[in-house]
């Protein structure tokens, strides 16, 4: 039982999703679901631990994978905050609603049904599937067990739009470590869920999530002691240095980062030589150093695999992959490529046959300050090599709009989709080919491509789209690995998008008033520590 003395303590976190009074807790809604709050209120199925690179079960007691079925067993003691059990019926309701909204789960799912007990759920797959993909889908941090039947049942026979527009603001019931107490324009107030299976391990009553707009506000909050935890916040090195000692940083691979996106319909940048030249010119290490030396790593190889996983996945082939000079500007190589493609350099600027300079406007999002620095660096590098770029910063909406509408030639874009899933190369490689975030606006056409063979023996032709899709149904690890290597090689050579740096997410804990899991504890490897640790009893007030 929680110590009496500290039970009144409040853990203070923060969200910058939006003003809480405008937000709600229906994870299936199109907009304004506050995931930071939701993550505390709804338990997840499972989680991926970046430290151990393994999955850990949370709301599930067990999951098992057969050829065409997946069986999920809910924890016996998983209860709603009303005290009622979370049942298979709840989960099935949720999954059925997710079918209406075309969630990823249903990419490979044919149907769901109750298993033997009211705590088991059986997922019937449409085809044999790679369990890794299913695990990642289920362990996705955004997928929460929230299908509280009294609330959600009524949507089963309504249109998808009904559930997508439903704002869950009254009578909210969750099953996570905390329950919804109140919200206003300032903060969410959550209290410990006494029915949570591990409630006894949580030694404090209240969890307050303040709403802040600017990163600087969160940084200053940590510095001044206003905040106890922040789940994810970019903090530049100078500020990290000025943080007091008790502010602890947990870095986790974001599998996300700054890259260069090309419009493949563009006359110049649709040309592979030009893309490769760009890759040669950019000094990725320098970009990382300028934009955030502590939290950004240059991608060692330019392909669709997260930097940390590249060696593991590519194995012996790793060295064959073109590095494009991660810490140098390889002007010679770049120049040769451009000359081969029919460009020539005059007055320090590269021009095509018609005398047009090679460059144009370089799209970058306004207000993403670390990206601004990266863009400045990249553009400086390119221009001093002889490209002719001008930065064109756009507000977020227009920024995405430009890409979605293919209204650009070159710009900044993240080259990995991010999240735990990105650790499994199937996701990022596929993502790079069709970048769903911008609706494939980079115009990388589905079809066959010819690239040099991996073993220098001429050329190879492949359809990267088809190949990567096939991974989803592969059960054999070796086969998976080989296919992934081939597609990665294609991406490395053909550069559908150019990865520059990968980012480390920074998550923040404080240890002056809180007893947190020690630095080496692998429990810190799950996103986000501020969400995961409290319910494990690994983040509690220090008893005086």
């Amino acid at each position, binding site marked *: 039982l929680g110590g009496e003395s500290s039970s009144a303590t409040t853990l203070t976190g923060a969200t910058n999703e939006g003003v809480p009074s405008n937000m709600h807790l229906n994870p299936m809604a*199109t907009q304004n679901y506050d995931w930071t709050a939701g993550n505390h209120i709804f338990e997840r199925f499972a989680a991926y631990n970046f430290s151990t690179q393994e999955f850990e079960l949370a709301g599930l007691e067990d999951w098992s994978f057969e050829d065409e079925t997946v069986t999920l067993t809910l924890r016996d003691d998983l209860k709603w905050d009303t005290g009622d059990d979370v049942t298979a019926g709840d989960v099935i309701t949720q999954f059925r609603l997710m079918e209406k909204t075309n969630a990823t789960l249903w990419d490979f799912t044919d149907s769901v049904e109750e298993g033997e007990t009211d705590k088991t759920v059986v997922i019937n797959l449409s085809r044999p599937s790679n369990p890794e993909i299913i695990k990642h889908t289920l362990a996705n941090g955004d997928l929460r067990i929230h299908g509280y039947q009294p609330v959600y049942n009524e949507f089963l026979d309504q249109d998808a*739009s009904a559930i997508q527009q439903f704002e869950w603001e009254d009578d909210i019931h969750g099953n996570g470590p905390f329950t919804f107490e109140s919200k206003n*324009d*300032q903060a969410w*107030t959550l209290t410990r869920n006494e029915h949570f299976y591990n409630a006894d391990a949580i030694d404090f009553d209240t969890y307050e999530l303040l709403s802040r*707009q600017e990163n600087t*506000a969160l940084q200053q909050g940590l510095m001044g002691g*206003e905040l106890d935890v922040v789940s994810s916040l970019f903090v530049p090195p100078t500020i990290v240095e000025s943080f007091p000692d008790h502010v602890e940083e947990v870095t986790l691979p974001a599998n996300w980062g700054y890259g260069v996106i090309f419009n493949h319909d563009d006359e110049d940048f649709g040309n592979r030589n030009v893309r490769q030249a760009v890759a040669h010119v950019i000094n990725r290490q320098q970009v990382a150093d300028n934009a955030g030396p502590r939290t950004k790593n240059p991608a060692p190889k330019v392909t669709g695999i997260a930097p940390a996983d590249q060696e593991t996945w590519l194995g012996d082939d790793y060295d064959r992959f073109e590095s494009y000079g991660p810490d140098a500007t390889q002007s010679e190589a770049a120049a040769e490529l451009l000359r081969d493609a029919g460009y020539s350099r005059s007055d320090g600027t590269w021009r095509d046959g018609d005398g047009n300079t090679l460059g144009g406007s370089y799209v970058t999002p306004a207000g993403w300050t670390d990206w601004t620095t990266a863009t400045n660096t990249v553009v400086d590098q390119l221009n001093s090599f002889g490209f002719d770029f001008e930065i064109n910063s756009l507000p977020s909406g227009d920024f995405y709009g430009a890409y979605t509408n293919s209204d650009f030639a070159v710009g900044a874009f993240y080259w990995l989709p991010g999240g735990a899933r990105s650790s499994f190369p199937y996701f990022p490689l596929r993502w790079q080919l069709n970048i769903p*975030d911008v*609706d494939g606006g980079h115009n990388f056409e589905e079809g066959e491509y010819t690239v040099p063979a991996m073993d220098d023996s001429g050329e190879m032709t492949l359809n990267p789209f088809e190949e990567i899709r096939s991974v989803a149904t592969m059960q054999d690890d070796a086969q998976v690995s080989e296919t992934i290597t081939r597609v990665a090689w294609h991406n490395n050579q053909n550069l559908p998008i150019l990865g520059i740096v990968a980012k480390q997410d920074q998550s923040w804990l404080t240890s002056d008033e809180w007893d947190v899991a020690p630095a080496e504890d692998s429990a810190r490897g799950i996103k986000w520590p501020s969400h995961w640790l409290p319910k494990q009893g690994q983040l509690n007030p220090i008893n005086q």
Partner: protein
Amino acid sequence: MVNYYVRRTARVFATIFMVASLTFVLIRLLPGGPYTLLRAQLLRQGVPASEVDARIANLQNIRPDAPLWQQYLDYMMALAQGNLGESISLNEPVVSILASSAPWTVFVVLVSTILVFVIGIFLGALQAYWEGSRFDKLFSGISITLMSVPFYVVAVLALYIFAYQLGWLPTAGTVGNGVERQLSIPFVLSALEHSVLPIFSYTLGAIGGQALAMRGNSIQVLGNDYVQVARLRGLSDRRIATRYVARNAILPMYTGFLLLLGFRLGGTVILEQIFSYTGLGYYLITALNANDYPLMMGTFLVITVALVLGVYIADLTYSKIDPRISAGDSDEAY
């Protein structure tokens, strides 16, 4: 000849109508359309493209694809009924967002503008009274220096020092977290506490200009015969300072006050962002970033109406306040 007051009142509505139309068109000119950001968000969440379109279609309470004139008519009709539509990004009636945010902005702007005037007038009058003294020189110097510091610089520094470093004042928001949102003493106190920094930073820099203006006005008034006569008549210095100098120097600044009030409503865009102060300016940026047309229009409209009413009130009341001006002249006062 139509009566001045009738004409003036008609003009208020005409102006609001025109501005509403103008901003409507302007906002529709924004590149991208209202759903670009949402589309990107949904795509990022892994929602397939086809589904994204369906979802967005589900959301549409305005018709962004209808012809512009159709949208315009719809909008104006709704507007006439006091309906500003639904915010696209917040999925809430714009009216209710404005109702909850406008009071904060109005409060901060009003209080700070009043402070600017009161302090500026006070300092300026003192400077004029002791024209040429060390006090005068010192404060003129301070005024000029203050004028050269943009308010957001003050805001950022004040926030850092007084809220984060010294912890004297809250760092963000309009009211303390634990405080019930209803009119009560704790609520008022907390609201005041939260408004100190925004008001302070929005006030400090602007004082300089007003002080200099007041100083100039007062010096001019002090040179008038009636001040000299008042002295000879044996009136006390205090009465001369208030009833003669201050009053006559302040009157010309009156319309300026109401205009400035409106002008400064627009400046909250930056201020509220820095202090996470959920007022009009804050939502305007939210709306802008999300291309949320209805919300943008709504915030615009509120600011416009405030401005137009300010000028209107100034016009109508100036002749009441300054006996020298007769109604109809007063719109020449600024």
